[in-house]
């Protein structure tokens, strides 16, 4: 599973500066807040709101699939980060704030609105722009966000029927 590491900050000077800019909150417009359903342990309220918006677009509603919001995927990502290396959590938080950042968005994609204030189709275009960017730093951030969302969602047993996975076989009496 390809995910984040505490290395994000050190990925070249440009990437590091941008992450710092994201973390410093140089936004032209406030984020649209989303209240977590459980107390946050690794993220702050703002970065959580961005994560929840990313989860909505990574794992949108689809017939047969349980809702990512109802499964609390963003909350579970927060819990996963809280149990690991604090440096990883810090850099993940910075990556989320960079994605949200209106100034960075303007420079990259010509949008001044924060990610959380964009309509869903525009959010998809932003994620696509990061996924296919010519700049490998942005592709790395995409992989980090994508990896954690996918890992957490697709390890929920509630999702197994939707993908045709019957789950682990019975062991037949092993103690």
């Amino acid at each position, binding site marked *: 599973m390809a995910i984040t590491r505490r290395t994000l900050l050190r990925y070249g000077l440009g990437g590091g500066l941008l992450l710092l800019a994201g973390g410093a909150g140089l936004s032209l417009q406030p984020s649209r807040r989303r209240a977590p359903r459980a107390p946050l342990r690794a993220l702050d309220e703002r970065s959580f709101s961005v994560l929840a918006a990313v989860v909505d677009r990574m794992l949108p509603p689809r017939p047969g699939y349980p809702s990512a919001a109802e499964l609390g995927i963003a909350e579970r990502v927060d819990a996963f980060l809280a149990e690991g290396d604090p440096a990883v959590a810090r850099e993940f938080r910075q990556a989320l704030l960079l994605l949200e950042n209106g100034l960075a968005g303007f420079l990259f994609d010509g949008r001044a609105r924060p990610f959380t204030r964009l309509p869903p189709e525009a959010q*998809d275009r932003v994620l696509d722009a990061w996924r296919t960017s010519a700049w490998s730093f942005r*592709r*790395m951030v995409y*992989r980090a966000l994508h990896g954690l969302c996918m890992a957490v969602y*697709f390890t929920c047993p509630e999702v197994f029927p939707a993908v045709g996975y019957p789950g682990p076989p019975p062991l037949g009496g092993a103690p």
Partner: protein
Amino acid sequence: MSARPTGVHERLDDDLDLVCDVCVIGSGAGGAVVAARLAAMGLEVVILEEGPYRDRRSFRMDEGEAYRTLYQDRGLRATQDLSITILQGRAVGGSTVVNWTTCFRVPDAVLHRWARDFGVRGLSPETLAPHFQAVEARLGIAEWPAAAANANNRVLFEGCRKLGYEVGPLRRNVRGCANLGYCGMGCPVDAKQAMHVTYLPDAFAHGARLYANVRAHRVEVRQGRAVDILGVALDPETARPTGRRLRVRPKAVVASFGALNTPTLLLRSGLDDGKVGKRTFLHPTVAMASFFDEPVQAFYGAPQSIGSHHFADRGPGRIGFFLETPPVHPMLAATAFPAFGQQQLELMSRLGHMQALIALAIDGFLPEEAGGTVRIDRDGRMRFFYPIGPPLEEAFCAASIEMARIQLAAGAREVRSLHLEPVVVRTEADLPRLERAPYGALRHSIFSAHQMGGCPMGEDEDVCVVDSTLRHRRVDNLFVVDGSVFPTSLGVNPSETIYALAHWAAEPIAAAIA
């Protein structure tokens, strides 16, 4: 209800000082075998293992739990730029607890290259043969019949047969395998002959003690001798330091922390000679997914049972590769496919019909290949860099095309690359699309399950960290016994060669103490 074998200590209530003959750091393929051999010779052995003790009672075939609890960095280990996902075990038994059981002897040609290019002395196929025989007998290493291969592996078999490519059954270290398909999450029936059910109990039977949840932080070296090992006790659940310390004072130290980790330990111990951590190799691995009309259920059945070395030697100047299969469980598949949204969910809906091949690039044999480099940061944590140059990119491209060809030959309806912008192939005529696609870091998913090198063995003092008896060049009583001593990659799955090398290394180590 204590089900732990005698000899395993899982928590430190107080700081502890120990004296022994040999301290083995790490309990995986290298550490377990060398510890068992040394203990059987009558030496007092203490093993330190940073991972937790887990066994079949706790293996629940649950991807989320398994990667979080049995893998390095909770399943997040990667190169510094996140371009290569690194699957490496972290438990009592090391990677042998979670590997996919494939066993090979190191090819003779690789040993000859080591002798010629790195001055490795005395490690001939004939020298190693009895050690291979011994570990094969102890670990039940035998060919898995092609007739028992699951549908996922049969695609590799049938596709290669149709194209006239070399292909055959693999050997596995199992006894009474139930063909479940969950080797990567810990064998729940103890069929896999991993170290925690074989060589570690052998070591305990001869009095060895193992301290789990203790990370070797530093080897104290004075006047060319390793004096103390400083260990930090970790909480088994969170892996965070508990504040307790363990100090071991042995006559000899065996570092079997695994590639990446052993170089990290040596660097933390101030043993940076400009060579430690260099020449780290990964068998960088690319994959192709394919879809069949009929169910494949690649999450069930022995995950790896068919292999092909048809493209291992691609001629001078080119990096060869070998072909195997991975298990296709939901999380592994979903993280490997880089799409999102409806496209991703649609793909995942077809999981039961999904088939996958992997191509493992045989890195480290071209003169220009320096491999990866392990460094440490101010806090002593590992930083790992692995630049992917044009020869590897060319190999990834060729491998992707050949995998697609094999999948189509076996009847796949659709083949899909793991590019960030995926390439879809439905007929042979589509294959040129794969040729035009970009290859390299963060262009597509890349994995490594085989970490090798970083403390190369041999007599070439400009490159080699340990000599041909695996003894550190500057620290008399420090030995390295794990995959980090390989001067190149192997071109085959490495676990069995690490077992045999450790089996062979015990005698020179015992002689050095006496």
